[in-house]
């Protein structure tokens, strides 16, 4: 029942925005640590720009509309706004954010012209130079740890702290985790299913390694990364590794999860002889998530995109898991 779930989510969101009892300590000044040092936010920000991926999701889920956010070409269609962001913006009302040119480097002049008082690049890959330029415009929060790896829980908490809504962010994370658990529980066949995430890339199979955010999220759903994938994975922390087409059958798992931007790409991949000879294919245990919006919603997911994309994702996974040959 995606519609009922979504309505419930919006009720919860409105609830979050109601005035809360005074917190034990004042929210500002807030000090946030990240890959390029510490950023101090003196007072509650009013004009926020997001940069990267999924930052606006967490901000909007916390009831704040950014004044500028990146044009998301992946899953954002012609408008550059992903459907779950679009729905949430419509629900919140007010001015639509200015869409920033997402090709390549952050558009410094475009961002400066917005006169922001906070720049959120919590899930991003901004460089030290880009960070220096951005923090010259406004206090900027970069990623912690490695670029493009921050989990949705941390994105939500960090953004919550930056805008003085830590308690709401904590609640949002808890509610979202509960939603994931509830959705997964409705498909008991998922728990313990051994999966391999595979795509066709650069003339070889690309197999997603443990460091990949899609893999992490699948394990959140109760699936298990197949031991064959763990054994083949390089130790350098790459998101994926190549496997020759000739060795496709060395990827042993209950199900194969693959992502295709459209049905033609999915059909082309599934039509390859080396795929059709796999036991997973013969058992009809290949879960293909098709469409950029669907893929964008779960790789990696955000507190907003999950509610939009998880039901379809879980259906596709559960169908494959149901067909998987029992070992």
């Amino acid at each position: 029942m995606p519609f009922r779930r979504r309505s419930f989510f919006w009720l919860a969101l409105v609830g979050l925005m109601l005035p809360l009892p005074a917190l034990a300590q004042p929210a500002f000044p807030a000090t946030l640590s990240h890959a390029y040092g510490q950023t101090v936010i003196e007072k509650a920000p009013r004009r926020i720009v997001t940069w990267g991926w999924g930052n606006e999701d967490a901000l909007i889920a916390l009831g704040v509309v950014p004044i500028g956010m990146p044009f998301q070409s992946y899953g954002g269609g012609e408008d550059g706004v992903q459907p779950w962001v679009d729905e949430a913006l419509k629900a919140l009302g007010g001015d639509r954010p200015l869409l920033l040119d997402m090709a390549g480097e952050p558009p410094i002049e475009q961002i400066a012209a917005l006169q922001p008082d906070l720049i959120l690049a919590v899930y991003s890959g901004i460089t030290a130079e880009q960070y220096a330029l951005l923090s010259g415009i406004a206090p900027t929060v970069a990623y912690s740890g490695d670029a493009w790896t921050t989990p949705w829980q941390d994105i939500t908490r960090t953004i919550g702290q930056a805008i003085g809504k830590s308690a709401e962010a904590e609640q949002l994370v808890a509610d979202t985790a509960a939603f994931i658990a509830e959705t997964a529980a409705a498909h008991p066949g998922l728990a313990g299913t051994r999966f391999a995430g595979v795509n066709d890339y650069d003339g070889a199979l690309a197999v997603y390694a443990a460091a990949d955010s899609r893999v992490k999220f699948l394990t959140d759903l109760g699936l298990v990364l197949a031991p064959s994938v763990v054994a083949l994975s390089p130790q350098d922390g790459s998101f994926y590794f190549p496997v020759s087409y000739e060795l496709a059958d060395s990827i042993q798992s209950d199900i194969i999860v693959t992502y295709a931007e459209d049905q033609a790409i999915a059909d082309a991949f599934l039509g390859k002889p080396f795929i059709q000879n796999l036991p997973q294919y013969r058992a009809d245990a290949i879960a293909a998530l098709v469409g950029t919006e669907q893929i964008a919603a779960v790789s990696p997911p955000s507190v907003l995109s999950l509610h939009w994309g998880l039901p379809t994702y879980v259906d596709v996974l559960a169908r494959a898991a149901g067909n998987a040959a029992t070992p």
Partner: protein
Amino acid sequence: MDRRVSLLAALVFALMAVLLLSLTLGARPVPLSMVWTALTAFDPGVIDHTVIIDLRLPRTLLGLGVGAALGLAGAVLQGATRNPLADPSILGIHAGASFFVVLGITLFGLTDLRHYIWLAFAGAALATIGVYAVASIGRDGPSPIKLALAGAAITAALTSVVSAILLTQPTTLDQFRFWQVGALAGRDMDVVIQVAPFLLVGIVLALALGRTLDGLYMDEAVAKGLGQRTGLGRAMAGLAAIILAGAATAAVGPIAFVGLTVPHLARSITGPAYRWILPFAMLLGPILLLAADVVGRLVAPPGEVQVGIVTALIGAPFFIALIRRRKLAEL
């Protein structure tokens, strides 16, 4: 008997050995007996058989045709333009093919390699014709230097447009990236069948150009004095190069150094006569390309290294050594 005849025979054997290696060696160890039964009694349910028939056979045939085409195209271009550094990239062929493939992905959302072929072909032909047209302006016609300059200019122009599109269209970049590297892997028999007629026509045409190129290679005035129709000769050479390099690039993406290195290698064996350089280049091209492909399959398990990367890695130092040894003076 001419020493070159026995060397040519030796190269034929070397090529057959490389073809055999390309069928038997790969990421997956397949016993020789299994390779034989795959070829004689194919069973689509046996994974070893499908590896040989669906993966190694097409890439081997493609390596054979594309290697021969690149070797010949390089030799023809070097002879016709009297430019020792001529290869398919210098006449704008790679840039033209890339430009059209990127346009196809961006404007029409094409994602299938089989569609790229026709785009790459058209782009290669248009770019080469453009280079010839620009170089033909002026009294002395398309001289080698003007051809090289026009090729460099058109390559620069097309490459910057390609970069501009790729920078603003990240999804195009993803699609384009694979084609751009140059790989024999992942091309099925359909690709082989599509390009085979072009490769065959181009090879026959190029091989027939031996005496013409020997004539063109002399001074223009001397060639004319000997009764050669130099304009027609150059046009035929250009046509052969477009067909060969266009089809090769269309099928496997731009592959560097084969077109450049192989003619020099052939020349170091045969001496300066093009009627000998051409058949040697035709045999050396696939030997180099397939050997590079086999190396690429074995060095990075469980993955593979694309042949375009291996040829660049092998080709660059090899070419430098060749220049140092021969000083290219014999051109």
